[in-house]
């Protein structure tokens, strides 16, 4: 029987980051939780601007930064030194279980996409990182584009595209940027471990309807979407309050959001999507949320 997790105050985010990097205390931080500050109001509408502003205030309190700028705060500079062809992210963790998680997720996304080359599908991935899933779609013969705020990641995708001579094109841009330049161009838009970095996800969900062809679908995987985790997600959406996440947010400045499943599904359904969940018993990374438009 494990003891109760340690509770930190937001002001202790820096201390948590330090302890996270000390082997003797790392596990304790991973199991710890952060308490919401006393000024945090729980009576705000999660779809309204004051709620969003309050989450931004929480982010500022954790990071000590003044203004959230995705192109600055979501950067991962160390990836520029990784070989995007031989050891992209999922292989560079030096951990077979990590690679296995990501590869299972990739396989699940590919299968649930239901796409074949005969359909000549056009696919868009947001927050693609090294773009390994996008690359696999492209190697099947599909037309794939990626959007990422990080120039370094886009450069890695460009290197893969050129190496494999496939129809894969990266674009530096923000969530919602439409590389096609015209509405209803995509059969599939997918997110892997990226949707939860989008602060303006409500606008994005409605934007997805414009991006997709009739009958098109959105797939989310590797996203922190929870059904019952009040200590980590005590609100419909917001910064996750587990120790590791808050510590990393403090150090990196990333926007590390999470979602209660009911809230997120209702948001997509209100935008006109049909919902289907594809759980995976072997890895939560491979649990896929499928949102489809009608033909």
């Amino acid at each position: 029987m494990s003891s109760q997790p340690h509770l930190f105050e937001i002001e202790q985010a820096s201390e948590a980051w330090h302890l996270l990097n000390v082997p003797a205390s790392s596990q304790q931080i991973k199991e710890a939780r952060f308490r919401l500050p006393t000024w945090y109001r729980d009576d705000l509408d999660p779809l309204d601007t004051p709620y969003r502003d309050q989450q931004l205030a929480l982010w500022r309190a954790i990071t000590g930064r003044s203004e959230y700028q995705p192109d600055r705060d979501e950067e991962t500079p160390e990836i520029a030194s990784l070989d995007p062809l031989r050891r992209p992210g999922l292989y560079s963790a030096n951990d077979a279980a990590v690679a296995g998680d990501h590869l299972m997720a990739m396989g699940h996304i590919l299968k649930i996409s239901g796409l074949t080359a005969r359909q000549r599908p056009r696919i868009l991935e947001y927050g693609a990182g090294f773009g390994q899933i996008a690359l696999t779609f492209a190697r099947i013969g599909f037309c794939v584009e990626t959007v990422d705020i990080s120039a370094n990641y886009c450069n890695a995708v460009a290197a893969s595209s050129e190496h494999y001579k496939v129809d894969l094109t990266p674009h530096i841009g923000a969530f919602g940027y439409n590389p096609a330049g015209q509405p209803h161009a995509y059969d599939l838009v997918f997110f892997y471990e990226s949707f939860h970095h989008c602060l303006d996800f409500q606008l994005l969900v409605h934007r997805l309807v414009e991006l997709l062809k009739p009958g098109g679908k959105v797939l989310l995987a590797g996203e922190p979407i929870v059904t019952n985790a009040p200590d980590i997600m005590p609100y419909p959406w917001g910064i996750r309050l587990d120790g590791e996440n808050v510590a990393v947010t403090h150090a990196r400045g990333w926007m590390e959001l999470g979602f209660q499943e009911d809230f997120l599904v209702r948001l997509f359904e209100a935008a006109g999507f049909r919902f289907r969940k594809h759980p995976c018993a072997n890895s939560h990374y491979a649990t896929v949320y499928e949102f489809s438009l009608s033909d």
Partner: protein
Amino acid sequence: MNAMGEAAPAVRVPMQNREGPLWVGFPDSDPLGRPSLALFSNLDGLLGDRLLIAEEWLSSELPTVRARLIERVRNRHRIICFGIGAGARAALLFGSVLRAERVITWAPSAAPGAGKLDAEAVALTYDTTASPPPSPHLPSPSAPAVHITSCSDTVDTDIAVARSLRPAVGIRLERIEEVPYSALEQALAQTNYLSRMITAIDHGRSLPKPHHLQRSWQSAFAHQIVLEPGLSPSNDGGFALHGTLRNSSPKAFSIGQFERDLIRIGARIISPGDDPTQPGSARFYFGSGALEAGATLPFRLELPREAIARGFEARVALVCEGRFWFDDQQFPNAILGVPADALKHQGA
């Protein structure tokens, strides 16, 4: 683009917009400091009066160029700016000024002649929300789609340029392996890659991929060089090396274009004891005309007596003056080695 990357909503295209866009090209500077025009080869026939080559950006002050360009694009509602190297940097700058719908660039960081166009100055022009359109007849403010294609040796610095443009624009990022900046303009000029890109944009089709350029470049410039085994005396007391260039590409070589683009047959000559990084050189100038597919052209390279008296090895290949040797880019060469003794037999 706003924070959500909002694009303009779909609208009915006005009659004037059904015409293709005006393509405004910004030349790089060639090794002699002149506007390098190879990029624009063969575009006249495709674009006609939809091609505007903005040479003035290299020789005039930026405010003057800005005013002149705004005047030159008057009444044009769709503009695409493009360029290589220094010209690419100019295309980024003036593409924002002119409210271009696209800016297509290759190696914008490789800009030896663009000191006045530093990255910061270019980035500032992309703050379209802060600056009104420069002229009422230009399109309303909107961020252009920016294409940046990097060469094999400009990737890192092009990324820095791309980062300086964020987050005001969406940037399409691509790269070409095995084609360095020095060979890029020739690669684009000698293939129909740019024409295919223009046609694709005009018809709303997918753009050609960079590896198509690499493949076309290797095909369009395919050739063989054969050297005769002996030397002959030249008029100035030296020797002449003879050989033939065979066009093994599927299309004719334009000799006139070779001359304009400073392409020659050249020899790098090394004698025993020479610094291999400082070879002697000789050139054959093509003149004019065309070399049809499959045809051969005889050439003659004059070798000064004093340069080869100790014997030599000559490596003969096509060269784009001041930029690159073709045999460094996976094209062939021919090598002839002649010892000093053999030269004596030939009257040295």
